[in-house]
Every structure is written in structure tokens, then in C-alpha cells.
């Protein structure tokens, strides 16, 4: 009887060992398996194809800014898959659709980005007009008002753009978090 107990414990220990091994080799699978059960998680982690195709290295997102717009970059090789900002309409929401928290953050990013781009753009235009009026040495009383109003609008727009990109950063944080898990 003791040997049978020992046998059962050995079987149990081997299951633990196999599970631990599956979790430490490479990056695990993303939330493709919607089931929350441990058994489903185990089967996904053991599938090497799933691991290699959707690992953090291949799928994780980040962005790099370029004069008001931002390139969305995927993976370790730095492949640009789209551009956002300055009235561009790349569907980021679709990109991060597998992570609900990321989708929420992307919506906030889109709202802030649109407001920031619009108001900031108008502010820049107003500032340039004010600067040109000033440069022409005309003592027009409107020129300081235009410069101050334009500067103010640019600051407001920049603040919203900043807030927007912070939300985008958070969106990608959540998306990358849900990868390889």
C-alpha cells in the first residue's frame, strides 16, 4: 500500500514538474484562450506554435513620436504598423481589441488627441498670424492678443495631446501585459 501511495505522489510531483517547465521555457501564450480555467491555460502554454507567433517579442506594442504624430511599433524588430495623431485615423482600438482595458484607454487617447490636435493647430495658426502682424511693425492692438491667445491655445492643446499619449502608453501597457500570459 505504501508503494501505491508513493506512486501516486510521484505522479503528482511529475505533473507539477511538467507545469513548471512549461511556464519557464520561453514566453507563454497570449489571452487567445479565453477560458480562465487552469487546464485550458496549460494546454495553450504547451503549444509551441502559439508561443512563437504571439510572444512578447513578436507582438508587444510601443510608439515613437515624430513631430506631433506617433508611429505605432510592434515587436523587437521595430516594425511600424501605423501612425496616429494630426488627424490621422489609424484604428488603434481594433489593434488592441484583445485587451478590454487597453480599448478603454485607447478611446480616451482618441478623444484627447482629437481635441489637442484641433485646438493646438488653431492656436499655432493664430500665433503665426499674430507674429506676422507684429513683424510687419504695425501697431495693431490685436497682435499681442493674437499671440497670447494662440500661445494659450497651443498650451491647452499640448496638455491634451500629452494626456492623450499618456493614455496610449497606458493602453499599450495593458495590451502588452495581456500578452504571453
Amino acid at each position, binding site marked *: *500500500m505504501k508503494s*501505491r*501511495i508513493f506512486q*501516486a*505522489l510521484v*505522479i*503528482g*510531483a511529475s*505533473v*507539477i514538474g511538467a*507545469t*513548471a517547465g512549461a*511556464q519557464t521555457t520561453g*514566453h*507563454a501564450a497570449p489571452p487567445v484562450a479565453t477560458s480562465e480555467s*487552469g487546464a485550458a*491555460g*496549460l494546454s495553450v502554454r504547451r503549444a509551441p506554435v502559439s508561443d512563437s507567433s504571439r510572444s*512578447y*517579442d513578436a507582438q*508587444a506594442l*510601443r*510608439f*515613437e*513620436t*515624430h*513631430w506631433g504624430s506617433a508611429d505605432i511599433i510592434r515587436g*523587437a524588430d521595430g516594425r511600424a504598423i501605423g501612425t496616429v495623431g494630426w488627424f490621422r485615423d489609424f484604428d488603434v482600438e481594433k489593434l488592441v481589441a484583445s485587451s478590454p482595458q487597453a480599448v478603454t484607454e485607447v478611446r480616451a487617447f482618441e478623444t484627447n488627441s482629437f481635441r489637442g490636435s484641433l485646438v493646438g493647430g488653431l492656436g499655432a495658426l493664430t500665433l503665426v498670424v499674430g*507674429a506676422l502682424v*507684429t*513683424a510687419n*511693425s504695425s501697431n495693431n492692438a490685436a497682435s499681442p492678443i493674437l*499671440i497670447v491667445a494662440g500661445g494659450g491655445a497651443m*498650451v491647452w492643446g*499640448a*496638455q491634451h495631446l*500629452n*494626456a492623450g*499619449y*499618456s493614455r496610449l*502608453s*497606458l493602453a*499599450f*501597457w495593458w495590451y*502588452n*501585459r495581456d500578452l*504571453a*500570459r
Partner: protein
Amino acid sequence: MARFILSACVAAHIALSGVSVLTAQEGTAYDDNALRLEGHIGDVRIVRGAQGTVLGKIGVFRGVDVAKLVSPSEKATTEAKNFARDYGPGTWLTSLGIATLGAWIGVSRINDVNHGITTGLLLASTGLIVYGGGRLENAYNALSRSVWWYNRDLER
């Protein structure tokens, strides 16, 4: 036989408990330690974890030692050094450009001023802002890459 079934149940329980503990540890590494960036007027904050603990602020003339912060990851450290290399000059040149733009606006309002001076100030300010802005942009992109690599190298 009953003892055998009992011991098998105990073994299975141990096995399943082991799985759940490992999964929790796996989730903790990223949730607690992964970094991200938050932009605010005047500074960029490096934030850690799902709770958003602010580790440091990178402002106009101040900053944190990003290389030290991401030192566990080799590639992240390299990118952090790229950030440090571009950030200082970018900040100074952009600030100088903005100051020169202010000077141009002021000089432009003076009557009978030499047009060469105003044109020179305008060109200098534009050049400084564009070049300094470009360096700053390179710096922030290097920072973004640094954070990405750091999070990538977190234990999963």
C-alpha cells in the same frame, strides 16, 4: 484502495495548487514592476506597475537616472544612455531657440531696425527649435524603447 484514491486526490490537489501559485507569481512580475511613461506639461513621469507609482520625473532641466532604473536589462540600459545623450542638448537648444524667438518678436517691434538682424534671429530661432526638438524627440523615443526592453526582460 481507499488509501490509494485518497493519496491520488492529495497528489492532484498539490499539483493543482502548484499551478495556481505559479500563475499568480507570473502575473505579479509584470503588474507590479512593468514601467510606462506619462506625459505632463513640463515633465514626463516614469510610472511603475498597475497602481501607477511614480518613480521619477524628467523635467526641463532635471531628470532621473534612467540607466540605473532599467539596469537589470542590458538593451534597456543602452537605450537609456541614448536618451541621456540626446536629452540634455535637446532641452538646451530648444530653450535657446524659444528665447531667440522671443528676442525676434521684441526686436521686430522696434522701428528702423536692420532687417538682417530680424531675419537672422528668425532663422536662428527656427533652426534651434527644429534641431533641439529633433534631439528631444530622439531622446524620448529612446526612452520609449528603453521601457519596452525593460518590460520585455521582466520575469514572466
